């Protein structure tokens, strides 16, 4: 392999001494790395290309990103340039690194905590949705790993990835006891809307709502556990049916929302909440999207309104792997759900999309999907159900092109616990990409037409 890079630099010096008159050689311009668009939304594809490289040469493309908490994430892929000296991640396969094969967005979903990072990190939990992720992409000589020093950097480009499109408005809601964040698209409206529910991790998870607003839907992330502005101890669900109903009505009453074009999306425990709200309380959403969650409560209910009394789901259903990591999967087996909390699915009247990660280690998604399918079928309502099932995908099926963690730190007290989410790298990434596209199409069909 001729050191083409040094030849080019030497020629530059020779050219200089011959009085500034340039006599040509077969020198090529210096390598260039481009990313397009260079400021993109999280669910936009990015085209990453290297140009002006020697033909049939080994190169490494490397991506680095710093999370809001300061943790460094990295991915890299090995390529061989083609005969015209280019590398194009939309066309070329990676032959080594964080992923293999032709994966245009592999450097993004393949991001891992860099060596030396804190352990048990779960990424894609961007707390500040108003600022972008900043990604530094570099083109390195040869097939190297980023931590190998010294490596020759041939070119670099910085890209930004945003959850919020320009003009999207983020509004903190603390109204009628309801705690949440509303995202509104730019423009006069009115807009179709989504109520957005997450799992027992609690707090207020905003990024999916921000992305829905960037795609033209008003979206309301609702907190129900583990938030300082909610009543009662933070480790219990102290709000019940009236709370979720208020949240839905808040959307309906909003001057910029179509009151009869509101859907609900739930992940994990949020699935139960969405199903309960839709079949129980006189609320009529236009559609439901359920990801990897139970059709009944995994926690014993304290009252008829759905408040809970215990601090944790029943530990007798927890299982452990060889490393002492815990799987919550069995907790949500239909047989283990508290019977009085099982949602009366036969009362559903709107289209329902249920998304299953077949390698979900945190919830019994397959079994709950089966239960929902059987119940709707028995009620003559199977046409309402769209079931998406992804082999190799785990629990946290999130917006695309963000990395998945197979396991992450769940708690530090009373002892350090790492929980298993499941999901293998490439299939989980494919599931996120495909399901997101189908979610947006489902919303388009049910909320816009």
């Amino acid at each position, binding site marked *: 392999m001729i050191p083409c890079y040094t030849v080019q630099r030497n020629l530059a010096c020779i050219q200089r001494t011959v009085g500034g008159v340039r006599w040509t050689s077969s020198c090529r311009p210096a390598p260039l790395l481009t990313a397009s668009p260079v400021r993109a939304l999280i669910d936009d594809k990015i085209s990453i290309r290297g140009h002006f490289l020697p033909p049939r040469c080994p190169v490494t493309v490397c991506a680095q990103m710093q999370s809001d908490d300061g943790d460094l994430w990295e991915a890299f892929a090995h390529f061989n340039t083609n005969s015209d000296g280019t590398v194009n991640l939309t066309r070329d396969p990676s032959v080594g690194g964080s992923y293999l094969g032709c994966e245009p967005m592999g450097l993004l979903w393949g991001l891992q905590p860099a060596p030396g990072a804190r352990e048990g990190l779960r990424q894609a939990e961007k707390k500040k949705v108003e600022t972008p992720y900043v990604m530094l992409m570099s083109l390195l000589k040869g097939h190297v790993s980023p931590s190998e020093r010294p490596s020759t950097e041939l070119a670099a480009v910085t*890209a930004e990835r945003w959850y919020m499109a320009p003009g999207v408005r983020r509004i903190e809601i603390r109204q009628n006891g309801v705690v949440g964040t509303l995202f509104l698209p730019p423009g006069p409206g009115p807009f179709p809307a989504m109520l957005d529910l997450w799992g027992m991790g609690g707090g207020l998870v905003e990024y999916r709502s921000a992305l829905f607003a960037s795609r*033209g839907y008003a979206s309301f992330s609702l907190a129900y556990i583990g938030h300082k502005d909610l009543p009662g101890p933070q480790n219990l669900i102290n709000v019940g049916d009236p709370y979720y109903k208020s949240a839905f009505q808040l959307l309906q009453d909003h001057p910029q929302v179509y009151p009869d074009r509101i859907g609900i999306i739930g992940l994990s425990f949020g699935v139960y909440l969405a199903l309960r709200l839709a079949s129980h309380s006189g609320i009529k959403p236009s559609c439901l999207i359920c990801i990897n969650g139970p059709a009944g409560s995994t926690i014993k209910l304290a009252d008829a309104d759905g408040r809970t009394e215990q601090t944790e789901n029943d530990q007798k259903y927890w299982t452990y792997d060889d490393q002492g990591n815990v799987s919550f999967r069995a907790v949500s087996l239909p047989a283990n759900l508290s019977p009085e909390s099982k949602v009366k699915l036969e009362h559903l009247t709107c289209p329902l999309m249920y998304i299953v990660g077949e390698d979900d280690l945190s919830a019994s998604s397959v079994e709950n999907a089966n239960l929902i399918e059987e119940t709707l079928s028995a009620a003559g309502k199977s046409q309402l159900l769209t079931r998406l099932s992804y082999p190799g995908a785990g629990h946290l099926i999130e917006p695309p092109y963000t990395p998945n963690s197979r396991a992450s730190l769940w708690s530090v007290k009373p002892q350090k616990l790492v929980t298993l989410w499941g999901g293998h790298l490439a299939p989980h990434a494919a599931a996120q990409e495909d399901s997101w596209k189908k979610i947006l199409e489902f919303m388009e069909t049910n909320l816009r037409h």
Partner: protein
Amino acid sequence: MSMKPLCVKLSVQPSRGLVDEKFTVLVQNLLPGFQLTVHALHQCEDGHSWEAFAHYTTDATGTVNVSQDPSLDGTYSGVEPMGLLWSLRPVPGSKSGLRMRKMNVQTPMVVTISVYQGHQMEGFLDRVSLASVVVERWYMAPGVRRVPITDGKLTATLFLPSGAGPFPGLLDLWGGGGKLVEYRAALLASHGIASMALDYLTPQITKETGKMVDNDYFETAYRVLEQHPQILGSRIAMLGLSFGTSVTLRMAVYSQDVKLSCAVCISGSHVQPIGGSVEQILAYFNRNADKTRFDENNQVIWRDLLLPIPTDPSLKVDMGRLQCPLLLVVGEDDQNWPAHECAMDMKEMMERAGNSHLLTVLSYKNAGHLIEPPFMPFARASTFKTVTNPPTKVMALWGGELVAHSRAQEDAWRKMLVFLRENLYGGMKHGASFSNL
């Protein structure tokens, strides 16, 4: 089917782009044959509002794609993907003589794109749109660093591309209006060239001493670039517009210290007293001030001040001595400088001297003087404040026709980037060929 109102979908991709990047405006979910107006609104830094609009009719799928469908009427017509930007004009009732120039390049230009029902001509701000999105247009790519420069008594700003480098360098000079204008240098850095915008008519040193700068000021600027640890000292170009061309040609040909890989001169001239200072060059132009003409709107035409092109060699830069590739960009309707005539004269000088293989001329019919980065709104005339003491404010006629000038900006910018890239990274045959463009 229910009587729900139509839920029109408007999208612009990308919603955050560089100023020279194209976008796609898509309107969907309407009925076929629906008449609509797409409207762009921008409030610039000095508070003035600019708008553009175009009339479309949806196709059989209820869609309008601005990149593919023709505008039937408005501030532009026909198929014009970027017409909503380059045809922006001050809203009715605005002051006359406005020109849009972004001075703060660290924030984006924000444009609101909206869809209105029907084919509307006016009163947009009093109507409710069907939908509206916000688009950002950036001069700086992510990772580009803005570095104010005061070394050597310069008033300048250096823009470094993202990454470790080293990068080729470029000295960026604007024209007779003075001030430190950063946006073109920022954009060039976004394309991988470390670029320094230099204020040479109204710099701090001139404000303090009352004296205009001279050759050593430009040589200092060149040296700052050459010695910068992230800049390839042997790969430096110079770019000048209008009076900036006068400085660029003089440095390129006569300076012992400045060794350029290439030069780009836009809307300028080689006519100047050889060996004169910057101040003397300006004085030479002023001597012909009686040749100033006015059009029917009392707008100032200055192109005759340099005509006829002198035959006296002491009044023209000796182009036969140029040793680096040169790209000349001129508008044939330039009413401010006789740029096209000067380009032809320079070509002739170089042909006689035998170095015309270094020269490329891009000459655009019906383009005016201010050939700027693409998709920016066009000003056929605008208020211009001279840097003389005391300054005078006039309405200068730049020339050009909207569509031809906008096309020229787009074409010239693209070719200029290719020219710079080929010459700054070393290795093209003389007189960079555009056969692959």
